[in-house]
């Protein structure tokens, strides 16, 4: 993996960076590349409140903001920028305005690589909308200054539609960092990790398959 000049990560929810791209981010920060994370919302409408639940609909954004800072510390992200959008509403915002806001950050930090959701393959409407805005943003930049785009796809039909991912990262060296980042998002991950552990303990084959998935991150280079 080449050392990037600067990496820009654009995702809508605190925890997208950890569940989705913690491995890539950790590999980049370890290699010495600065990482800027443009986070769209505070995940205000999340359904997970911790298990047992410790957040309310009204305290959740504060809880998740703290978790986000913790995860950034784990991942070595020292430039976290919040866009102040609201969970579930990104697709209803003026898409041109969103793209312009992201383009301004690209102009400022001149990233060599941008990581975002693959539009149409993010499953959550916020993922699709912000991914599309981020990609649109690059078209507002002079071609020679456009970052390479590694798009994260989580749809069930991703390989059917997009083919095999051209970027496959081996996370063996940073898997512990990825798990620590996910754990930092306690309100969102605790229940799910406990459930996973139960499944893993039930069946060694499931554990083997599961760990193979965890040890890899896949991206599709997007040509805007």
């Amino acid at each position: 993996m080449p050392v990037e000049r600067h990496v820009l990560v654009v995702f809508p929810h605190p925890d997208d960076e950890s569940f989705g791209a913690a491995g890539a981010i950790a590999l980049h920060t370890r290699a010495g590349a600065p990482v800027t994370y443009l986070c769209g919302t505070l995940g205000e409408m999340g359904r997970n409140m911790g298990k047992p639940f410790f957040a309310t609909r009204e305290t959740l954004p504060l809880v998740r903001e703290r978790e986000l800072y913790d995860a950034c510390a784990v991942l070595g992200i020292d430039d976290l920028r919040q866009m102040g959008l609201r969970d579930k509403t990104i697709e209803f915002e003026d898409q041109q305005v969103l793209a312009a806001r992201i383009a301004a950050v690209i102009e400022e930090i001149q990233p060599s690589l941008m990581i975002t959701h693959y539009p149409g393959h993010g499953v959550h409407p916020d993922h699709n909308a912000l991914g599309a805005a981020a990609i649109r943003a690059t078209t507002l930049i002079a071609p020679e200054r456009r970052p390479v785009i590694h798009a994260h796809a989580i749809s069930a039909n991703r390989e059917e539609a997009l083919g095999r991912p051209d970027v496959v990262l081996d996370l063996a060296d940073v898997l512990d960092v990825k798990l620590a980042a996910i754990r930092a998002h306690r309100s969102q991950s605790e229940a799910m990790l406990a459930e996973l552990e139960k499944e893993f303990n039930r069946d060694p084959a499931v554990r083997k398959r599961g760990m193979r998935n965890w040890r890899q991150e896949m991206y599709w280079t997007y040509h805007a």
Partner: protein
Amino acid sequence: MQAIETSAVQATLDRFANQDVFIHLETTNGAYAAHRQEQTMAVCAFIRNGLVRYHRGTVAGIGPYRVGLKMEQGWIYAEGLTDWELDEQGRLLMAGHDSDGRLAIALELSTEPFGL
């Protein structure tokens, strides 16, 4: 939050009656419901900072609970409420959590707008 105790919730509903109040009403089965095939589709609705006035607000059931707010020209209804809290800002927060602690429904009342 704590488990709903109807007499305390009823008293609080009475306090919010007959005045303009901001409402947050929401129900969701999760943005990934269809993806995880828990359900055939993701379903969610929310209203945040609707301004309403009811003259009769009632909590009913033996748990999970229902709340009905009767307005001059309509009704507000929520079913599946399990927990409640009167927070430091004097807001009435009610929610329904499933066995995994995930929020399935929320009904909240406040005399000041909820944060955006």
